[in-house]
């Protein structure tokens, strides 16, 4: 039994591996929909979420996990482990990191290491996956945190949205607002970097936007990992994979679907590329 437990939240998305097979505890965020309070990934799956997003008149809003859940998770894990490394989505986009930090202080700040991934989705997922592998190899909490922190600046996520509506409604548009909130129909190209959603470009068509996403990613240089991410547009994602495989010179590019909470802000049709730059 490894002595370090890995914790993340339900916004982390994974390629090639199912969260259930991962040696990590996933704390769910909450999707609030009308009167329903749904734990992400437990009370509602990603498929159910996007289906309901398309059909329900009401719009969901999301909230971070209650501090009590983190406390309970940490307390239980410390019964059987020496330490916890808890890796979460960008603190500038969600209060989850702060909640985890406050729970860690309550339980045992010395043994619980909370990490701000400054990324979302697969970006956080890669950190968690790597941390889980190191934990399995019985590395110390300090070594795991250092390894994860080293990866964080190399994470990139560039994507285009089908519509700005969801990002605007969720209030996560940040500095992109002035840039994107215009009167014409534009397909924004955005990047998530240093924990913020940043506008990169305004393109008038989706095909043009995808070309730019691939081009911007290509210019990032050599990469350790590349993955196409999407929200409820699997066919587009598969077609886009071919394009990305060609521009990245890789035989095959994995696909990950963006989960409910990030999906509620990006909206269906979000499509982009996550990458981890080579070190």
């Amino acid at each position, binding site marked *: 039994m490894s002595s370090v437990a890995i914790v993340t939240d339900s916004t982390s998305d994974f390629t090639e591996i199912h969260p259930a097979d991962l040696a990590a505890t996933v704390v769910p965020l909450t999707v609030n929909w009308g009167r329903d309070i749904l734990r992400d990934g437990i009370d509602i799956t990603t498929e159910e979420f996007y289906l309901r997003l398309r059909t329900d008149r009401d719009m969901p809003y999301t909230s971070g996990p209650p501090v009590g859940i983190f406390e309970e998770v940490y307390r239980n894990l410390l019964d059987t482990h020496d330490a916890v490394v808890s890796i979460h989505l960008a603190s500038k986009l969600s209060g989850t990191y702060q909640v985890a930090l406050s729970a860690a202080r309550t339980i045992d700040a010395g043994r619980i290491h909370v990490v701000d991934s400054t990324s979302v989705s697969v970006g956080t997922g890669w950190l968690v996956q790597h941390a889980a592998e190191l934990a399995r190899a019985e590395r110390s909490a300090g070594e795991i945190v250092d390894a994860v922190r080293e990866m964080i600046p190399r994470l990139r996520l560039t994507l285009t949205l089908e519509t700005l509506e969801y990002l605007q409604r969720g209030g996560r548009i940040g500095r992109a607002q002035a840039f994107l909130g215009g009167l*014409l129909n534009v397909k924004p190209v955005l990047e998530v970097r240093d924990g913020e959603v940043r506008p990169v470009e305004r393109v008038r068509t989706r095909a*043009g936007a995808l070309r730019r996403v691939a081009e911007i990613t290509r210019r990032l240089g050599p990469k350790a990992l590349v993955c196409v991410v999407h929200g409820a547009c699997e066919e587009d994602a598969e077609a886009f994979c071919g394009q990305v495989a060609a521009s990245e010179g890789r035989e095959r590019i994995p696909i990950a679907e963006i989960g409910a909470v990030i999906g509620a802000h990006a909206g269906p049709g979000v499509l982009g590329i996550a990458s981890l730059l080579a070190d």
Partner: protein
Amino acid sequence: MDSIRSASKAAASASLSGPVLREMFIASSTWLDRHAEAINALNVFPVPDGDTGLNLSLTLRSASDGLPADEAASPAEVTASLARGALMGARGNSGVILAQYLRGFARACENQSSVDASLLARMLVAASEAAYSAVVTPVEGTILTVARAAGQAAVDASSTGDVESTLSSALQAAHGAVARTPELLPILRQAGVVDAGGEGLRVVLEGLLRGLRGESVEGPIEAIHARADLSSLHQDADDFFGYCTEVLLQGENLNSSSLRERLSQLGTCVLVVGDDQLVKLHVHTLNPGVVLELATEMGELVRVKVDNMQLQHAEFAQRQATESPGADKSFETKVSTLPGCSVVAVASGDGFAAIFESYGALVVPGGPTMNPSVRQIADAIARADRADVIVLPNNRNVVMAARQAEELASGRNVSVLPTDNLAQGLAATLAVNPEVDADGNRPQMEAAVARCRCIELTLAARDAILDGLEITEGAVLALLDERPVATGGSHPEVLAAALGLLGTQRFELATIYLGELASDSEAPKLANILADRLGVEVETAVGGQPHYPYIISIE
């Protein structure tokens, strides 16, 4: 005033004083205002754009309005003020050339306390040289040719030592040069007009001579020697030109509807309200006298009000320019600017302005029929909050004014991206990332402009044959990237013809910008044609531009 005038007449032959020069330019400005409409009609393309007369007139008005009233002002002071005022108020390419002309005129007069015949001739030559240097590739058969002819004739005549005959010779030479412009420029010959800018300069010189002689500049004007059809222009330009004429008419059995019908033959914006004994009528007309005659026939005039709308408009533009915030600070270095790049865009139509503004651009109102002044552009640059500013003229006739504004804005990194139309301007604006500096933005912007084709649909303002295209007044005319390419009876038909000329380029998106004159039922038809012929997505947006019912960008 009277004493100055009589003094000026007495001394006119030998030399010109500062106050006399001032009077001459004020007279010339009024004279040019009165001819603006006729000069506008000398438009090569039969589309509502490039209103040279208005541009020249507003430029000269800006120059002459601020002249020092001081009776001790020297010719050097008067002409320096003139040059400065012209530069700030310069509109359109012709206005910028006139401003440079006056700058050369002033420079040759530096430190002079009186202007004799030989100095006047030298000033006219220097003016001509400055005008030539203002243009990258000088073209003969334009205002430049007229300027040079006037200067040469002045030099020849100046040996008489008489300023009046020197100026009069310059004017005669200008007259001849204007008449010969179609021989030098095939496009003028094709269009059956003389060069508008050249004619404008001739009128300026004529106004100066009238001012010198103390002749009236208020009386009737001669028709210009060209096959220019004023009646067609009249409809396009109703609100900016001519006279707003209002009459309160008293009589018996006044017939409002027949009155309305007769007035609508005399002008636009006809309004007749009242009953059979008292009627108020309102019309925008080039000929208020005829309206008054008509009214007198029908009854008794109770009250008459005639406003020169062009002057009003010039004053309004001037007031706007001087009152807008930061107007006098436009040359100061802005103290605190953010890094990155702002965009200043010239746009006509509320819709276009709103779209540009929604993407963070500072909008200078103006377009094909109302070119903005250098000062308006400079003011917008001064308001920009980023260190670098890129100016999008969105019209070829605004490029020179934009470049002048660029030169004025010291301390800021200002550059002009010479966009030809609003479609290119928007494509460039959308390509901007405000957090990146101008150099970083330019490649993307230029690429976006290069990818963007533009079809503009309008009505031909008169008959013409251009590039083998026979254009009938009132027909629908398509411009593809500013060139007339197709004409016909309906917008869909002409659009389809223009699309055939796009070549083999592949497109993904077309945007239809609906102008003031667009029709709700027609726009979907145009959208279908674009979707069918090009296989593109089509978006429709409100441009609100005057004169062009549809501007279509294809990217």
